[in-house]
């Protein structure tokens, strides 16, 4: 398989260390070579746009240009917000020559140029494109039989479709396909595409916690054993802030929340410690 540039994002490099651990373990098991560029910077999580739009575009065009400079055709990320921010940069620059020229003018200060040759994909998109469900199923050593998994997408995994475009944002199926390929059952609910409120956590913590609480409640109401999400920011709210979120909606229970690579890793037979499952704040018994 071709080498791809790996953009882990700040969360996976910090507070969601277990996402980094599980992604690299899964990639190794599947023979995928993820090359992390030490020059990659934080994408700014969309908030740089609030300082100045050109700043947001230039910082991320720098990331894209660095991958191009190193000869990569694909960047793979495990953070949905990084995915949206990088893809949005690409979408805007590829569609507007004047803007691209302006941003390249900024990049030239650092001797870089964005050419528009690199693609940005989520890790699970990459798996589905390269291996497909069948390919993944063949690699499963420990089918997750009987495990009911709630697929929680996270906004920036699917919306806006215009920018993300991998699957219909109104009825995505990528997580369901992966869950089934791993031998588990899908326990889906009406809030699988709702927001967790992470991006308003600082200005409005109560609202953010209520949203997360409602999502957790939904997973519980459909009888899910655990939740899986491809977004570390959703994971932070659903897992690390679980108690607080449930309090906000007058509930008290505990439901494990696994990063998607953790779930995949378990099915591939990777030992839980290598997947960082001991680092999840809400206990995961496996």
């Amino acid at each position: 398989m071709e080498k791809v540039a790996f953009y882990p994002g700040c969360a996976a490099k910090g507070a969601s260390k277990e996402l980094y651990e599980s992604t690299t373990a899964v990639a190794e098991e599947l023979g995928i070579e993820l090359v992390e560029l030490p020059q990659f910077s934080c994408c700014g999580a969309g908030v740089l746009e609030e300082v100045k739009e050109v700043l947001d575009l230039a910082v991320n065009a720098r990331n894209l240009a660095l991958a191009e400079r190193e000869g990569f055709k694909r960047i793979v990320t495990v953070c949905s917000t990084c995915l949206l921010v990088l893809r949005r940069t690409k979408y805007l620059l590829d569609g507007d020559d004047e803007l691209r020229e302006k941003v390249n003018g900024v990049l030239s200060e650092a001797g870089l140029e964005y050419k528009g040759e690199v693609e940005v994909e989520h890790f699970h998109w990459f798996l589905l494109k390269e291996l497909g469900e069948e390919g993944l199923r063949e690699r499963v050593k420990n089918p997750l039989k009987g495990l009911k998994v709630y697929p929680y997408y996270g906004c920036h995994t699917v919306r806006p479709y215009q920018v993300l475009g991998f699957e219909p944002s109104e009825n995505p199926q990528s997580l369901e396909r992966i869950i089934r390929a791993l031998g588990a059952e899908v326990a889906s609910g009406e809030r699988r595409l709702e927001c967790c409120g992470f991006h308003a956590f600082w200005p409005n913590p109560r609202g953010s916690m209520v949203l997360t609480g409602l999502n957790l409640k939904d997973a519980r109401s459909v009888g899910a054993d655990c939740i899986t999400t491809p977004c570390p920011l959703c994971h932070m709210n659903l897992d690390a802030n679980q108690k607080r979120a449930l309090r906000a909606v007058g509930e008290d229970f505990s439901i494990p929340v696994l990063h998607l690579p953790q779930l995949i890793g378990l099915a591939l037979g990777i030992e839980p410690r290598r997947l960082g499952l001991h680092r999840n704040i809400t206990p995961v018994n496996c």
Partner: protein
Amino acid sequence: MEKREITFRIRRFNPKKDPRPYYQEFKLTVPKGMTILEALQVIKDRFEPSLAFRAFCRSAICGSCSVKVNGFPKLACKTQVLIEAEKFGTDTITLEPLDNMEVIRDLIVDWDRPLSRLKELKTYLIPDPKVVPQSLDEETRVYPEELKKYDRFTDCILCTSCFSACTASQMEEEYGGPFQLARLYRFAVDKRDALKGERAKIGYAYRMWDCVRCEKCADVCPKSVGPVDGIMRLRGISIEIGLKDNPGARHVLAFYKSLLESGMLNEVLLPLRTKGLKGIIENLPLGLKMILKGKAHSPILKPIAEHESLVKVMKAAMEVE
């Protein structure tokens, strides 16, 4: 020509006589290309004359016919039945009134609340006498590059689809609303406007920082306006005009500072930088758990490789007009 039998499951409710809403089903043979609005009209003409829905232009320009199709707000006149059936892998199309507003009857909702918010936010041009001539003998020229700043935000047709889908509007009554705040931004960057950047203060008062960036408004907008982008820019203007001492703005500046310092987000200092001591106290239990789980980095981050190139790019970007 491709045809398929489709079941339309329509939510009915007449508050004057029905104790509660109910669903009524209609079966139609739908040819390729038939829109939801055409289907509604056939149902009304052939089976159920009392069915109420709004429609006018049939060309996706008046914004009257917005309804929820299988849970998502859409213009009935712009949406084809068979494409929707395909997308959801079903022969049943559920039609419901938009969310977040009271139902007047069946698929018709009361727009007063979201539309009166437009007035409250003063989303109309307040002419700047220094720019806009007092008489009609002269004109105010707006050049293409000036228009580009807000052009797409003028495409809004007030269909309220974004308002129906908006997470923040569902959560907080006082939140300004997606199309409303985007329209506020549109005037904040219009050179003819007297208030201009000061309009960000209105956005602040109407809790624009409550936007959760769920991108639903961008996704459902039938005119690709992307209200969220306008809201982000309005936030940026608020920081420019000095509304910096609030968690939203401080959070933004914390990112900016982190990138200049090391190139990566300093998560450990984020609570302090965003909310001061309160941020630390509120998040202390979680912070301790993070430390115990080995997930907290050192408060001083090692810079990324070629960090100086990032700093150069950031500085140059800040100087670009």
